[in-house]
């Protein structure tokens, strides 16, 4: 049913841009750190994560609705 109402997108898939971070991962030693947002228990967080082993080096709360910027987020900045 859903395939008729909402067909599979034909365009490009959205890709989360990841900002390269200098340094090596403390867990696996790879030079593959990147900063990007994630949605997990407790809400949206901005993390620095090793792209090789997925270990998290840093984690801080991000905007409440992630990519959706609320007026209150702008006003309270």
């Amino acid at each position, binding site marked *: 049913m859903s395939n008729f109402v909402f067909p599979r997108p034909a365009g490009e898939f959205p890709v989360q841009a990841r900002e390269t971070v200098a340094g090596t991962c403390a867990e696996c030693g790879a030079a593959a750190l990147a900063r990007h947002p994630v949605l997990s*228990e407790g809400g949206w967080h901005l993390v620095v994560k090793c792209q090789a082993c*997925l270990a998290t080096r840093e984690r801080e709360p991000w905007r409440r609705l992630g990519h959706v910027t609320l007026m209150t987020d702008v006003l309270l900045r």
Partner: protein
Amino acid sequence: MMAVDVGGTFTDVVSVSGGVIRTAKVSTRAGDVDAGVIEGAAELGLAGVSVFNHASTHGLNAIITRALPKVGFLTTLGHRDMLDAGRCWRPAAALTDPSWRRSFGDAARPLVRRYLRRGIRERVKSDGSVFTPLDEAHARAELRVLAQCGVQGVAICLLNAYINGAHERRLRELVCEELGAIPCSLSSEISPLAKEYARASTTVVDAFMKIIYGDYARRLDAGLRAEGFSGQLNFADCTANLIPADDAMEAPFRVVFAGPAAGTMGSAHFGRLIDEPNLLCADVGGTSCDISVVIAGQPFVNTTFELEHDLVVNALSNDISSIGAGGGSLVAISPSGDITVGPGSAGAVPGPACYGRGGTKPTMTDICLLAGLLDPDGFAGGKMKLDPALARRAFEALDTPLSFEHRVRYAWDIGLNNIAEGIFNIAIKHGIDLRDYSLMAFGAAGPLLLPALADLIHVKCVIVPPHPGLFSALGLLSADQAYSMSRSAYTILSPAAAPGIARIYADMEARLRRRLGERADIGIVRSFDGQLMGQTWETPFVPVPAGELTGASIETMIANFHAAYAARNGNRFEAIPVQGVTYRLSAVLRTEKVTYAALPERSGSPLEPIGTSVLRFLGDTEETARIYSRDDLRAGDVIAGPAIIREGLSTTYMTRNQTGRVVRHGAIVIRRTRQGVPA
């Protein structure tokens, strides 16, 4: 024979030779546990010791404190967060608390951090057929990541592996190739039971225990033999039955919670000697009070236990409830001004204020010293001196307008009531009437605190066994070697199911006999866990008839299930089909156990007290208690309360309303004195 019970604070060692029981108590050395065990064992002498039975909670403590090695977890792709989700159960207190988090989840303190949990592309269906073949290239890539992260062990739990473990076995081979010969636990081998979260949790705990206990068992064995030991080293499992060390280390999750179970085993064994088959067993130590039940001479056994809420291990275990109430329980004033006792404890360091090791907070031990129950010069067999002035100063420092006398009195009452509440909860859970049960009081502080509870909980009597301070360690000399196997296979019970179930039992029995060798004296007992169709929880240990399994045997199994269900739940539903879930085998090898010598009866001069003590703060007025030495007691002696009975590692306190009678095997049986009539 010799036994050791390693606790968080103390390590207790007992030896029995020629009917003589000798004991030693040393402080547990965190980080060097085996050295303390060897020290205590050497103090008693290991020459000629035929068996050394060991129970420890240091594996459990490592899990609780998360002082764990780095372990990787492999599961079916898409399911790596099962260790975070658990069974999705909240405790009752958290049902309306949005901030509650499960203690082992990713938002709290996970056992295996998320980046070390890797999904493997494969899938086995519930009938054991392969839906997605194992993608070995994908698996190797994940294993290389784990190798880069320096994991010291791997736990593997794939969906439906309890039916078909082929993918898990192949993954172990790949682990060996990519990571070397590191400990690797497979769910299909150590716990081939349904329900993947419990199986995964058990497998992860097993991987941790293989690392923690593997080195420990080797060092312990070497250290004991260097001191002259040449016998059999056994580890106690969570039912306090004994497993030879080599066998135990193949699946060490079974020994993670052995210590508290030994007290129950010792109580059941001693209860048989004095014809007390129904017991509430309370082991009161420095930090906690462990409460368990013996019904008709047998400890109550569960098929799983929880290390923390929802942190499940599929090991047979004595049902023990622990509450934070012990001799070291801290007395404090809550933010609303109430006196609280526990659950925090002063531990061994700094310990109660009266220890003089720097502790400044009052504890139950400080109350007992101030009340006149403890001998300040004779604590711990005379090895420690207690300072009443420090205990007084600790109570005076409490921020409360209550008088000093009320602080001590109320803390005493509240401490006792905390234990009474724990006992009531156990009784309600098991549907037992406390008036039909006797309370076995042991542990360092059990005989000191528990007799005073008799008026609160109305048990039949309170029994203080011989050597109560080391009774748990003696429990390790009261058990048999036991072997068990289990496998899950959901099967609607009908005569047509007989051949399939028979094959399951035959396979398990063949493997069990290979482990045991050719012994004619082994009795193998069969049972199963079943459920009514539509249920998701099982009724465990339903008897299965011996001999060939036929259609008639299945009918008997169904009848047995309905009887067991009715005994547990009070009703039966014979119109609903019964489904067998887990099939169990157990084999017991009878071993030599500790015997308690009969005390001679008194002849000649009557029992005389060795002194008196003025008791303060425990009641409305002061009173004088007679002090006796346990070494002076003889069978048949009757002691009227208030009375204090001192021995090397324990003190018994009887209230004015109680009378104690010394029975044949040295126990003191304490009952409420009827008006003018001793019990």
